[in-house]
């Protein structure tokens, strides 16, 4: 305990003297986030300084082993670091699918050489990773995927199409689910491979969404080359790795909802839009009920994420609980934005509103689709937790 208290004090002091004040502000615009990569973009010098200092401190991936560029912190220390960063509203120095999704899978299933090659550049923000999972005909039924990966001398050749590749047009490398055995049952012929996107066989095309933004891409593979040692886990056993990675994706998406729940209370926003009467009660009584119920649910959800993390730490966890959190967290976030839209009235509909509320609201409709739909999460809960039978 004393050690942790010492760690907390040291962390506070380090953050105090190293986190630029401009980096202790809530993320407002997209370019407030730093994603790194071969062609990184920075909005200002503070972003560069903050990233460099955190990379040097090895706290971009604080709980990864030191030998792979991580900070080697224990779970308890990692929690303290997150708490202390939250306490001063420190921005994450680096957003990264490499840190959130691929890294954990490589740490569990990767070879020593793969970890040595791929993890340190992730922690330094040098390589930006994209995720190649869904296909036009394989959405919720992901295991039906048909992108082919065939042996061709000293390498593999990949042919097919992926869709919903987040920031695919800005990715340097991509982790791709491919079919390596067309004869096997659908879950048994899949592998997870790592592919350098800087080659003529890989092209991307952004997809314009309802919100007008284009963060998602179609990604095409035409005789794209993949080295033989870039298969993660055993050949044809990729579904196991893919599922493990998906639990991290669910946590990430659920986690962004958690971030919002912990952020500014919904009622503050609503009160600002709608106003209070002389007794300090929200002027719209119907909206007030909805807001109160949503805030109550948001708090109880936040505590649930804490409880499940505590249970996991104590070895009492159930893996499928991430499905439950993903389901509830994303549905809650949609409710939150619906109420924000109601509260802002006509003004909410304006495309040039400074807080781009209407675009954010549109974007939330994807929360309960991406990373496994709400219905898929409910299937997982029904089968894996409640033990209800398949057809």
């Amino acid at each position, binding site marked *: 305990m004393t050690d942790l208290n010492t760690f907390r004090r040291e962390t506070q002091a380090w953050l105090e003297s190293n986190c630029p004040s401009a980096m202790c502000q809530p993320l407002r615009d997209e370019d407030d986030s730093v994603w790194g990569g071969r062609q990184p973009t920075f909005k200002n010098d503070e972003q560069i300084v903050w990233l460099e200092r955190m990379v040097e401190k090895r706290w971009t991936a604080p709980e990864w082993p030191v030998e792979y560029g991580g900070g080697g912190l224990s779970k308890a220390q990692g929690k303290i670091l997150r708490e202390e960063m939250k306490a001063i509203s420190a921005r994450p120095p680096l957003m990264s699918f490499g840190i959130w999704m691929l890294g954990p899978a490589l740490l569990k299933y990767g070879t020593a050489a793969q970890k040595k090659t791929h993890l340190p550049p992730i922690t330094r923000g040098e390589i930006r990773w994209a995720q190649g999972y869904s296909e036009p005909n394989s959405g919720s039924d992901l295991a039906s995927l048909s992108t082919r990966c065939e042996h061709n001398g000293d390498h593999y050749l990949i042919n097919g199409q992926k869709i919903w590749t987040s920031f695919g047009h800005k990715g340097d490398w991509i982790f791709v689910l491919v079919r390596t055995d067309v004869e096997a049952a659908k879950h048994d012929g899949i592998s997870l491979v790592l592919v350098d996107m800087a080659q003529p066989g890989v092209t991307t095309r952004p997809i314009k969404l309802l919100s007008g933004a284009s963060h998602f891409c179609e990604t095409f593979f035409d005789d794209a080359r993949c080295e033989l040692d870039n298969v993660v886990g055993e050949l044809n056993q990729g579904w196991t790795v893919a599922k493990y990675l998906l639990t991290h994706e669910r946590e990430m998406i659920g986690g962004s909802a958690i971030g919002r729940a912990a952020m500014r209370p919904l009622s503050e926003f609503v009160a600002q839009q709608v106003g209070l009467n002389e007794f300090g009660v929200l002027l719209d009584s119907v909206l007030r*009920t909805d*807001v109160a119920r949503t805030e109550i*649910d948001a708090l109880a959800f936040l505590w649930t994420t804490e409880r499940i993390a505590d249970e996991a730490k104590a070895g009492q966890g159930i893996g499928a609980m991430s499905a439950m959190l993903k*389901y509830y967290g994303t549905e809650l976030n949609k409710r939150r934005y619906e109420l924000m839209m109601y509260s802002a009235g006509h003004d909410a509909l304006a495309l040039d509103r400074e807080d781009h509320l209407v675009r954010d609201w549109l974007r939330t409709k994807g929360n309960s689709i991406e990373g496994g739909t709400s219905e898929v999460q409910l299937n997982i809960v*029904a089968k894996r937790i409640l033990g*209800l039978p398949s057809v």
Partner: protein
Amino acid sequence: MAMLLTDEQNMLRDAARGFLQASAPIDQLRRLRDEASSDGYDRDTWKSMAEMGWSGVLIPEDHGGVAMGHVAAGVIAEEMGRTLTASPFLSTAVMGAIAVAGYGSASQREQWLSKIADGTTNVAVAVDEDRSHSPGLVTTSAQASDRGFRISGGKSFVADGHVADLILVSARSSGGVRDENGISLFLVPRDCAGLTIERQMMVDSRNSATVQFDGVEVDFDALVGEAGAGYAVLEHVLDAGRACLAAEMLGSAQECLAQTIDYLSTRRQFDRTIGSFQALQHRAAHLFTEIEIGRSAVMRALQALDAASKDRQLIVSVAKSKVGRVAQLAAQEAIQMHGGIGMTDEFNIGFFLKRVRVAEALYGDANFHADKFARMRNY
């Protein structure tokens, strides 16, 4: 604080579950109802609970209690929610104990705590006068008299009122009917002249009463805390009760889901187990999720009470509001997924619908606590 039960609390849960399922299952409640029991609970069962220390769960050891705290009290209440065990636990061992141990005078503590702890004195909290919970609305009056105070007025929906040996009552010693200031609390023995207690038969077959005070004379030392400053005390007592009611409803909701899953896994229609239908799987999975969210609120509320957290009231209102709604959902979904058999009296699932409806109304329903929550959050 980690949101986990300690080893001691886990052992208590296992012991409580074992005892209640063996000695006080739902069939006991059915028997009490069918026999029109005048007590409304089984005195031998309560005696056994007292011997296990449950009635003293919140009472200091030097007064014969085991002082295990609110989380432990919630663990017991949750298990009672699974079996729908009728007992004076909530009104006596939780609310009565908090009132006397936390705010009673030395002589009140001396007189009552050991008797609460050994299960020989039942306490009931008489607070409500209106059509729904409203602890700040007090028309019952406490006028100064030669002996101390003269109490006049009526209270309704008093849980365990007709089996109480001691009534904790809120009465107004000054101020207007809705003023928080001016409310005083008294401990009134049931044999006082002018006190009339009448049992009300409620849908849950548990104990509820109306209590009438017709110029009941009490001594100065019947006062709990300071005259006129009883509202804060009452709120603390109620919050302990609300958190444990939420725990009880959480137990009932879990049992509704468990029995529903069993039924879905055995009942066959269209040549298949109905639990294989996605329409039912999704209802069950959604209910499971809601229960897990509610569980966190209950644990947080009980921990906040143990830690005397400054956010205690807010957290308790989150728990009572959230779990109230979850429990109503659980009971209704259980009946829907059981189909026709769920509507029969012969089948036990309906007892849950009845009890969680009463527990929802007791000490503030989901709407009361959502409104209170919003006020505490300044909107």
